[in-house]
């Protein structure tokens, strides 16, 4: 039964998928979060973040309709994101404990300290815009939310990557780019759906940039993570991520026609938003699949040991 160390390492390099386990049972626990709460929290937060930044730029560029939609989406999205997060807590009445401490080692603590001020500022800005009261303060709040917006787009990638869930931790280099791209397309999608064509040129461009980043990062997750990439290609995750890619491409294509056709613009926006939902649920599903099969825990760790020759490197 026992083999010498070197032969095991050799074997790991030749046949990476071979591994031993305890009755095939998982080693790490799968994420304890609920679906749809947490994937929606990721999607809504990203959409809100990109929209807030767009709204700020639209305000200084004199595009009032785009600014208006961006401000409303930022407020609505971030409040819904907060609601999804609270709903997911085992003890929802203790949600304020999230702000009990500021803990740099916890991406959820850092994230809460981004999400809480962001949603407050975005909501203040939207309220001022809707009521016409305290305009200067509303504009200031909107500007601050716009500055925090990009952080809203990417902190959730670190939240997922800082776990022992193999698909997420191994994907730590690509998830921030994927989430940034996905947030940009979703924010652009909301604008394309709700803003008249005279003011959507920036959203169109942002959508194209986001789509390029998203598709490139998605490709790397599906191919560059060794055996763990399987979890991004197969099963429920594979289906969702393929749908996400197709919808992103469709949204990008339709957005090019959106200057002339209101219908094309709306369809492009809807496709981008649906793509965002599919991508977030897909990444979540890949994490769950990678935690369920001990292969994705054991094989990368064995490969790492074979590469570095020592534990914990």
């Amino acid at each position, binding site marked *: 039964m026992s083999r010498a160390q070197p032969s095991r390492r050799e074997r790991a390099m030749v046949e990476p998928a071979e591994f031993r386990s305890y009755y095939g049972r998982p080693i*790490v626990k799968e994420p304890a979060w609920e679906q749809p709460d947490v994937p929606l929290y990721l999607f809504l937060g990203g959409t809100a*973040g990109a929209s807030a930044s767009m709204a700020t730029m639209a305000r200084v560029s004199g595009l009032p309709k785009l600014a208006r939609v961006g401000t409303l989406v930022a407020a609505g999205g971030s409040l819904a994101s907060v609601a999804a997060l609270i709903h997911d807590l*085992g003890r929802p009445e203790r949600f304020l404990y999230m702000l009990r401490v500021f803990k740099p080692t916890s991406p959820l603590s850092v994230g809460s300290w981004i999400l809480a001020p962001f949603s407050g500022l975005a909501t203040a800005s939207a309220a001022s815009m809707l009521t016409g009261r305290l305009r200067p303060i509303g504009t200031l709040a909107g500007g601050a939310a716009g500055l925090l917006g990009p952080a809203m*787009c990417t902190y959730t990638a670190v939240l997922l990557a800082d776990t022992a869930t193999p698909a997420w931790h191994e994907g730590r280099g690509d998830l921030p780019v994927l989430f940034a791209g996905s947030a*940009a397309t979703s924010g652009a999608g909301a604008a394309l759906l709700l803003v008249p064509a005279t003011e959507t040129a920036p959203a*169109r461009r942002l959508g194209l940039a986001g789509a390029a980043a998203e598709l490139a990062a998605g490709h790397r997750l599906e191919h560059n993570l060794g055996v763990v990439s399987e979890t991004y290609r197969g099963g429920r995750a594979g289906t969702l991520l393929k749908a996400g890619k197709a919808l992103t491409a469709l949204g990008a294509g339709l957005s090019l026609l959106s200057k002339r056709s209101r219908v094309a613009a709306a369809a492009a926006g809807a496709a981008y938003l649906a793509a965002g939902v599919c991508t977030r649920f897909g990444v979540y599903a890949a994490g769950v699949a990678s935690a369920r099969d001990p292969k994705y825990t054991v094989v990368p760790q064995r490969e790492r040991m074979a590469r570095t020759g020592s534990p914990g490197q």
Partner: protein
Amino acid sequence: MSESGYADAQPRMGFFTDTSVCIGCKACEVACKEWNAVPAPDDPSGMDLLGLSYDNTGDLGANNWRHVAFIEQQVPASRVNKSDVDNLGMPTIGAPEQEDDTGVRWLMSSDVCKHCTHAACLDVCPTGALFRTEFDTVVVQPDICNGCGYCVPACPYGVIEKREDDGRAFKCTLCYDRIGDGLEPACAKACPTDSIQYGEVSELRQRAVERKQALHADGVTEARLYGDDPDDGVGGTGAFFLLLDEPEVYGLPPDPVVTTRDLPAMWRRAGAAALGVAAAVVASFAGARR
């Protein structure tokens, strides 16, 4: 200062679990449940027979703070009952062994929270519910935990878990309430073979090395220590093991790392991506002024 941040007022306490003398009696599981009032599984069907040798517990979790693993392996008969490791003094039946006969080797191991030096569960907990005690152990404060569940996927060993009907996370406390009074943890107290040994980690580590050397001298060359190395991916564990096969055979990760170790790099990456979003938004408005 210890690795984990406490001044050396109190030596680090932990477990050395010598699986070579575990007889799979599960006294540790029972004693833990009794002392800590750990409930039955959320899902009563979890009380079923699992069909995994004598293991009907399955894994560590909110309601199992000790878990005895049972592994049956086909080995040449000559490997069975040859050293004091496998020889539990059980009566045997049948004809004397032939060289090419196969026998069964039974591995048993009582698993528990590792009380990591660099504990991912503690690092990622946003509320501060998880904390490090004066004994260098890792404990959840139930009055602070808001059940966010972040610790659950963070643990590289799959130890901590949310209790569904309660909503909060639970795991082994290394019997914080007992060791504070100078008692040994319930599981170690109940272990009839001293497979579970409680004590100062520095002393346990020494004892573990001696035990491994004795087993090697006895021909049990597969004996190995797991979690004793302060240079491993979690900085060594407060609860460590002597195993007779590769860790993954027992359901343990072969090379666990605390993922917060990569946190600075991950934040840099996310920061760069966020700057990318900002740049893309600004650039997309170029020439858009009306």
